[in-house]
């Protein structure tokens, strides 16, 4: 094989096509910014799967292009190719090699998955309620519901999510996490935000007319700023509740639900 007259042109073609692939992979910004520990692990796995994919794709394309160019005959050529029916060694190779690569992928994926979903003891649990077409986040530490989610950087967050009507999906691309929110059950999602910033929450499961606009924000704050916000919100809520109780005493029958909008200080910027 190595001494075959096909070796050199195949190598050149591999360099051209493989090189083009690598250029495309390197010079286009495929991967979005990283915002969580989960994202780091997923990106490493993705890199591995990507490299394997590029290698296999290059191999296939090189052979197809080379065959189309080198073995092409004119319409007048009535001869047949060599009657080769198979090659057991080759067939074993192209069964076993992909099997090994895939096994590595599967084990790696399993490890990443269990790491990504391992629960920390000091995690912050936030209740999420989705409905057509809005999000509501209840932070038990602050005791208030809000349309945006505020979490401290460096601490694990677990979302307990419920839906009021149809299936929605909580998706933040910088965290590389996604989870359907299904009516009737509570689904859970874990992420460890690492970088302070504001990220977009996208509903990723078709949920009706307003699906495309069902957005919210996750605001990852410095722990200190977050603590300040919690204290502030708690105080505000207490104040509001007191006012409400007064109202109730006067008018009665008013809703006792927690306030739907939480007064929030300006997002802390580092």
């Amino acid at each position, binding site marked *: 094989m190595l001494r075959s007259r096909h070796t050199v042109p195949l190598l050149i073609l591999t360099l051209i096509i493989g090189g083009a692939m690598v250029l495309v992979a390197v010079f*286009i910004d*495929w*991967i979005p910014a990283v915002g969580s520990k*989960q994202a780091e*692990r*997923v990106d490493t*796995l*993705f890199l591995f*799967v*990507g490299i394997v*994919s590029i290698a*296999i794709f290059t191999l*296939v*394309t090189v*052979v*197809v292009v080379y*065959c*189309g160019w080198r*073995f*092409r*005959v004119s*319409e*007048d050529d*009535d*001869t*047949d*190719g*060599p*009657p*080769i*029916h*198979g090659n057991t060694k080759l*067939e074993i190779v*192209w*069964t076993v090699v*992909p099997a090994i690569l*895939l096994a590595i*992928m599967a084990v790696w*994926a*399993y490890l990443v*998955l269990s790491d990504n979903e391992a629960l920390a003891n000091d995690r912050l649990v936030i209740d999420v309620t989705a409905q057509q077409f809005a999000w509501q986040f209840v932070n038990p530490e602050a005791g208030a519901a809000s349309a945006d989610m505020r979490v401290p950087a460096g601490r694990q967050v677990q979302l307990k999510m419920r839906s009021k009507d149809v*299936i929605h*999906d909580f*998706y933040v*691309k910088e965290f*590389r*996490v*996604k*989870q*359907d929110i*299904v*009516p*009737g*059950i509570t689904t859970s999602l874990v992420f460890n935000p690492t970088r302070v910033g504001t990220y*977009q929450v*996208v509903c990723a499961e*078709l*949920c*009706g007319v307003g*699906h495309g606009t069902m957005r919210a924000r996750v605001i990852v704050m410095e722990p200190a700023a977050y603590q300040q916000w919690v204290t502030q919100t708690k105080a505000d809520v207490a104040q509001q509740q007191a006012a409400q109780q007064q109202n109730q005493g006067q008018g009665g029958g008013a809703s006792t639900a927690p306030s739907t909008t939480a007064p929030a200080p300006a997002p802390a910027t580092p």
Partner: protein
Amino acid sequence: MATHAPTHSAPGGGHVHHVDPRPLSYWWKRAAVWTVGSILFAFAFVWLLRNFFQNTPTWDPQVYNAVAASFGAIGFLIGIGCFVWWWGWIRGRTVDAEDHSMHGATSWRDYFKVNTDHKVIGVQYLVTVFTFFVIGGIFAELVRTELAQPGQAIGDGETYNGLFSVHATLMIFLFVIPAFAGLANFVLPIMIGAKDMAFPRLNALSIWMLIPGGLMLAVSPAFGSFSAGWTAYTPLATQGGTGQTLFEVGIQFAGASSILTAINFLVTIFTMRAPGMTVWRMPLLVWANATTSALVVFGTPFIAGSQFMTLFDRVMGTNFFDPAGGGDVIMYQHVFWFYSHPAVYIMMLPGFGIVSEVIATHARKPIFGYRALAFSTVAIAVLGFGVWAHHMFVSGMAPWLRVPMMITTIIIAIPTGIKVFSWLGTLWEGKIHLRTPMLFAMGFIVTFSIGGLSGVMLGTIPVDIQVTDTYFVVAHIHYVFLGGSVFTIFAGIYHWFPKMTGRMYNETLGRWSFWLLFIGFNLTFMPMHWLGLQGMPRRVATYDDRFADMNMFISAASGIMTIAVIIFFYNMINSWVRGPKAPWNPWRGRTLEWLVSSPPSLFNFEATPQVVGGPYQYGVPGARHAVVFAPEEIGGELTETEKRTILVIANETVSSSTLIDEIRHRADEGLWRFTIAVPVGDGDQRAADRRLQVTLSVLAEAGVDASGTVVAGDPFAAARRVIDEEDVHELMVATYPTGRSGWMADDMVDRLRKATGLGVTRVVVRPDEARAPLPHAGVTRTAVIVDEAIGNGRLVDALRERADRGPVATVLLYPMALEGPGWTDEAEELRGAASERVREALDRLQDAGFQARGEVLDGDAAEAARVARTAHDAQAILVVATRGGPLGSDEALARITAAAGSLPVERIVVEAPTAPAGG
């Protein structure tokens, strides 16, 4: 019902073909009455029932719609005549199981009514599905129009949700799945040597059932289309309106059609294979369709179940998916994907089969690893039932199910990889003809690899969690279904177009359609991977501004695909109407469908063929796949009057072994006699006659029924002359390769095709082949040992005399009888001069119509005789001697005779040339 392929005599034989006398309008009026009547009946029926059971409110539109749609479709099927035969049977009438009154097509009208001919049904399928393809394509372009810029462009969000839902549903259920059913309907029974499918009437019911189902989906936008996506996840689907009802009912009809076809295929493949067609001799398309059919039979009921439950939830108020009533939302996804993942293989495996056929045929090589390909098909199908939950990694299902499903998913990549690599192995060192079907097949390998690899990415759970429900998945599914399935459908359409229509498509337009589609496709869908990774969710009409440029680019690129598809349609329709007639076997394929006429006769075969070998034995000397017999009624052999004529037109190439082998190959089909016409123009008639005699002699020796004539004039004159006298069925034209051939320079093949309206097979003969002596029986191979007489005109005269006694093939041997060492410059010079003289002599012989080869020998005449016997396998030796020359003596003759052994030796003595020729 027809069991093992019944025997039908050829048209015009003993069997009278009764044709249904009722006109087209009768059936369609009947269908209209039944459809409208059934819908009205449905409304009355539901109204009565609801009153009887005191359901409130009496008017609940979705109940009425669901029942009316179902009844209307069934009424249509009754009206159009799907049940006529069965209705007679049910009532206890005497019915003829072999009733062919609705079989076959003689005009376009026959395609518009119920027909039991699998070939007609195949065409009906393909025309139907391509109609839905156009509708689905328009929806796709509307989707891209909406997405060209970030804001809302067409209608409201609901409109957009309807657009992509209808697009996906039509493409999946009304295009890809039934397109494969249509292609297989046409070619599969022929491939296995059957006269039809096992259940032709059921087959007709299947196609007609697809039509109302498809119409319900296609017209649903007019009633407020279903907008929960083709996956129709509950509870969102439960919120839908009339469109959703039409979706749920329409899918049932499409699904039932699919199941019935699949059962039909399975029974056909199990019971109706021609004798000798063992499972390991089945073409891979047959393997693929058997496997796919099993998937359809056992998988499709699950989508039926899921849609029944959703329908009941919506119109009856059941609680399958309502958590408040104890239902389970995620259960829908399990039931749905338990069908819909195997459906992915239902949409891929037949394509794999088509690609295997196309690649082996156009690369002229046996398929690489036939058994591995067959087994991997089965493996994919079996594993396919165990991977459904990989669509649900983020759905909130039981978490423990994820890793097992990832492992099965990843395992599927192995048989898929085996397939791709086996195709590459088949291409390697093939003789690749880059015709349109082959381009599509090779393009498919590239694009499908991308789809497969992104599939592996999606199979690894953490990556899937990141990119599922984004445009990455949109890119993946289109690389699999468009770059995969649709490319294979196009490959199949182009590949079998000559067989199906009896006409050739336009190759140039075909190539244009491929390249535009390939480029447009990649430009459209490759960037979607990026969009998905960057976090653009799918199924949204409005999106972030940062995706605007890329989406505009994608929308523009999708226009290229539209142009490609328009070219495709133009090519198909135009070629179907006025394309050149196709020969039986334009690609020189080996499988059975290529051994019958284009288009095939009413019952495909005159008699059941006998399969004797594997289907892809390209390049294996003497190997054959099948023998096609003459009708049994006349003893299995055709009498002379029954054989149809193939007219062979050739001049200088007439006695080439290439042409003779091709004729013998065709003659093995048992259906042909050959008339060989040699148009000589203003050339030497006697030379042409001599060549013809050689060919006829060889053919007679091989038992081929052939006659021949030399015609003064051009090939047109020759064709006219023969066609006037005989019923010519097909032309075979032998020429030198393009560039060497005067006929090809004049476009002779195309002009003959147009002038005669017959299919033309072109046989290409290399010039050195044309003059090489034939190795066949029927020709006396004569070695001519010659001295200085080689430069003499008398040599040709002597041979002529000889040739008049019987066809000869000549080997000219010129012994130089050098004295002294053979390596000196002097000897080299002599040798060169001798070679030159031999060449001149050969040219003269060629012009005179002799096939000759020549050789200069260093030895003497006796040596030449030995060489003649051993190296050239000569049957006779002729010595041509100059009077008084070295071979003229009796002594020389005695030496030659001794060296020649048992071969007869003859000597002709000619006068010395007046002027010495050469040095």
